[in-house]
């Protein structure tokens, strides 16, 4: 049987990509001084750590310390998302190039890009001396980072709307404000709301981490327990965080689904 041959330059492309990937990983591994025996040894070390976490520390005292911290993370994430969505909503209209003139849209987009480039943790420790150790710092950091990300996502939603309703409003004599309230907002609201909830899920993970620099939340508790080598309690912190994140994800995903797909109509 005669099979068609693969074109030659495709083969060259394939081999060069493969060798590039291998070379890059070897170069990185050599630079980081990662040797084979360290890699082989790693699962054993991780196993020892996980083994030390069980049985979990389920004492009353542990829970009375951990549970408030876990909920603090939840509140930080929610308040940060509220700040982010509140400010990003008007900004996203400025950034959408079908709603504002070219130069305003471009400038706003660049500002959003710059905001987005700073990770929450870096924002958090810059704010730390000003706003103090505590959840407020974390909330501000998460809120500001969310303005950047939500602004970008929402403006892209606004740019992708159907122009039909806008024309209908214009032809019946509606003003620019009418276009906004009857033409754009009803179209984009479901998607933007679901982005807010999605951002909340991401922020929850971020706020769990913020405690590392002392900006409130459960991260502080985890790093303390790990430093004091109290592994059972660190395990409890981890399990509590996982439960919180899984629950929040499930609830938020269900609401997002309902918002986007609408109610199931039984026929």
């Amino acid at each position: 049987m005669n099979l068609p041959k693969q074109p030659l330059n495709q083969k060259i492309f394939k081999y060069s990509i493969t060798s590039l990937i291998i070379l890059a990983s070897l170069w990185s591994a050599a630079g980081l001084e990662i040797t084979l025996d360290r890699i082989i040894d790693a699962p054993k070390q991780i196993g020892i750590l996980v083994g030390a976490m069980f049985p979990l520390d389920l004492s009353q005292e542990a829970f009375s310390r951990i549970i408030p911290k876990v909920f603090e993370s939840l509140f930080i994430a929610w308040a940060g998302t509220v700040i982010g969505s509140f400010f990003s909503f008007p900004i996203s209209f400025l950034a959408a190039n079908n709603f504002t003139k070219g130069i305003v849209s471009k400038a706003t987009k660049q500002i959003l890009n710059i905001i987005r480039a700073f990770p929450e943790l870096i924002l958090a420790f810059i704010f730390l001396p000003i706003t103090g150790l505590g959840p407020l710092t974390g909330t501000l950091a998460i809120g500001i980072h969310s303005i950047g990300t939500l602004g970008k996502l929402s403006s892209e939603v606004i740019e992708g709307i159907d122009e039909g309703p806008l024309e209908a409003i214009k032809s019946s004599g509606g003003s620019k404000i009418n276009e906004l309230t009857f033409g754009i907002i009803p179209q984009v609201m479901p998607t933007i709301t679901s982005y807010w909830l999605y951002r909340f899920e991401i922020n929850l993970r971020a706020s769990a981490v913020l405690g590392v620099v002392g900006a409130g939340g459960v991260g502080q508790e985890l790093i303390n327990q790990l430093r004091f080598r109290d592994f059972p309690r660190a395990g409890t912190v981890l399990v509590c965080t996982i439960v919180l994140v899984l629950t929040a994800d499930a609830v938020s995903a269900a609401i997002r689904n309902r918002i986007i797909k609408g109610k199931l109509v039984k026929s």
Partner: protein
Amino acid sequence: MINIPPKPKASYLAKIGLPFAFMFSIFSFNMIDFNFSDFQNNLQNRKIVTEPLFNPKWQWAWDNTSSALLETIQIAILASIIGCAIALPLSFYASRATNLNKFSYFLYKSFLNLVRTIPDLFWAMMFTVAVGIGPFAGVLALVMFSLAIMGKLLSETIDSIDPGPMEAAKATGASHNQTVFTSALPQVLPNFTAYFLYIFELCIRASVILGLVGAGGVGRIIETQRIFLRFDRISPIIVIILAVVILIEQFSVWIRKRIL
């Protein structure tokens, strides 16, 4: 007189959910104990931050960050390659289209979900305890990070592949493994490449902060300067990092456009 159709009734979800969300927001803002007078007091200290922040010491940053920055990039490269390589077979097991055994599908899917719930810095903290402080812990943490994201993205892509080629392969008498290799894998490979580049970008961003918990990279330098409140040294480092991150992102976007 025109008959205007009645407005549809607000749904159950909106009636209960919106007030609840509103109340929860107020409650959350209360719980983060925002205290205005404290805030004003602290605001007077802002010079501690703002003054050095806008007087960056460029020379110091140039001399001290280059090796750590290289380490950051190497961590991201190695971790995204290993993580995605592990995720490739895993996501075929975690997809309904290619894994016919419901029980093992459920196991793989929940494993990926579990890995995804733990934030990257938590992984880094645990690995620094397990394998010692240094870039190796950072690599392991980002391997878990990229494994989780790639597993989720790719398994969902496999869920939605065109079943036609798989049926065709089955009709010619191929075994299940052969079917997956010849008709499911080629369909998702372009997506895999695009996701890989995307995850590489995420890893570059994530690896910057790994050093805060001792997992290597440029974050290590940020952390030591942060403790001494040397914001005049931190601000040029941040600017350099941002420039490098944006440069690498542009490069990856360019490759993605060429491949797809």
